[in-house]
């Protein structure tokens, strides 16, 4: 097995376990590369990649751009706020215009679920989903699982709890698929209003008690409350949410075992996670960011291999 089973990365749902393991094995090598004095390899010097972001992003866009540059690809960046989208151009027209300038791969973030899959069927370029609405964020799930594997040796058999706004989180859905494919057990934890009603059908456990969930798990992935996606009030106040589901040092120290803390960022310090926990030794938040570049390099490299010459 040294080829991905997919031509585009639109979601973790389409990947096989072998695909994920191949990505991790390749990412191991790229992690070594990005720690060299010269952090660059020439593999993709004949390719051009467009980063198209219809939604705000700091970490993901920077991480993708660094990954592309360290593979020697040419990159162009495009964000919706400064573009013709504002003038009424459709998604396909926008992307086809970019592709007409000879672009081989598109990394796209879009507020609508399914936008990446739609695009992959309509345009002649490899598509990587950098987040589509509340649907999936595959590279985030890959780097999360990669970070767990790095810290704990493997993902198989580990227990991971995802805490917070599960309803609006693409990170949660991609993580559930990815962790389950790698043989981990997943629990989601949060207020009833922020847990989708039928999430149990995905084979995950549900808890509404943070302490109980943390006592069960090996790894806790704390999510941000996505106020920008919440059209109605899902809980009385942020203060109340923090009291019920915020992770602080006191809860962490009260557990019978040491667990690992993750966060996909951006962190709202003092809301879902307190500062002392985010900066503690148990937190691997910054490792996640470092691994993000290596994992994205692996994804781009493996998809680029499928581009015809």
């Amino acid at each position, binding site marked *: 097995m*040294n*080829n991905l089973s997919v031509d585009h990365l639109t979601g973790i749902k389409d990947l096989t376990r072998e695909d994920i393991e*191949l990505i991790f*094995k*390749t990412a*191991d*090598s790229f992690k*070594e*590369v990005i720690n*060299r*004095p*010269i952090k*660059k*390899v*020439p*593999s*993709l010097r*004949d390719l051009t990649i467009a980063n198209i972001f219809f939604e705000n992003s700091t970490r993901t866009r920077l991480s993708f751009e660094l990954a592309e540059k360290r*593979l020697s690809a040419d990159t162009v960046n495009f964000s919706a706020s400064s573009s013709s989208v504002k003038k009424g151009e459709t998604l396909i027209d926008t992307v086809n215009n970019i592709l007409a300038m000879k672009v081989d791969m598109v990394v796209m973030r879009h507020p609508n679920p399914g936008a990446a899959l739609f695009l992959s069927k309509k345009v002649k370029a490899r598509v990587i989903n950098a987040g589509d609405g509340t649907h999936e964020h595959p590279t985030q799930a890959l780097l999360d699982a990669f970070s767990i594997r790095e810290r704990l040796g493997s993902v198989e058999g580990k227990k991971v709890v995802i805490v917070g706004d599960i309803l609006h989180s693409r990170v949660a859905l991609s993580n559930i698929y990815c962790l389950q494919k790698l043989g981990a057990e997943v629990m989601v934890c949060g207020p009833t209003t922020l847990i989708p009603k039928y999430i149990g059908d995905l084979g995950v456990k549900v808890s509404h008690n943070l302490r109980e969930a943390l006592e069960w798990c090996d790894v806790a992935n704390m999510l941000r409350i996505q106020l920008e996606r919440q059209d109605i009030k899902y809980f009385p106040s942020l203060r109340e949410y923090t009291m019920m589901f915020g992770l602080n040092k006191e809860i962490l120290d009260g557990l019978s075992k040491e667990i690992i803390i993750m966060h996909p960022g951006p962190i709202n310090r003092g809301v879902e996670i307190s500062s002392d926990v985010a900066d503690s030794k148990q937190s691997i938040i910054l490792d996640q960011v470092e691994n993000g570049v290596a994992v994205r390099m692996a994804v781009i*490299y*493996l998809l*680029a*291999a499928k*581009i015809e*010459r």
Partner: protein
Amino acid sequence: MEKQIILNPTHLDLTLKRLSHELIESHNDFSDTVLVGLQPRGIHVVTRLKSYLESILGKEIQCGNLDITFYRDDFRRREKPMIPSITNIDFSIENKRVILVDDVLYTGRTIRSGLDALLTFGRPSKVELLVLIDRRYSRDLPIQADYIGKTVDTQISERVSVEWKETEGADKVVLFTKESNE
């Protein structure tokens, strides 16, 4: 495929010993010289050379493994992407004399990639090439070795395989030739 043994275990051992002595001739006590083996097969040659050199010189020789997958010139020209092996160079090569080591020198393309990969770790004062088998008259690039175990004349249809006790069960070098009536 017809098999012909080019080097049997005894000869292979003698050749490696001779290469070790040749290295000492030009690098004295190895005070600023390091060995870097190319993945995946060059590292076996390094392992052997290291043990001979260390037993002769009585000191530790710095050795590393270098993977060149991402530096190859045939990415996207192959059916499938190549899966990288481990790179492990845990010392500085800045101003060192580096001996690149591989098992077979054929088209020279691997060595070209190896040079590119090596230079991302710093600026060595000198780079030399040691190969166990040199397949003469088959180069695509102007690359020659400084130390050669054995030179063989081969055709494109033939294949040279260097086998080791650790991986294949015995130390030997085999030439595979297509049978004439095939």
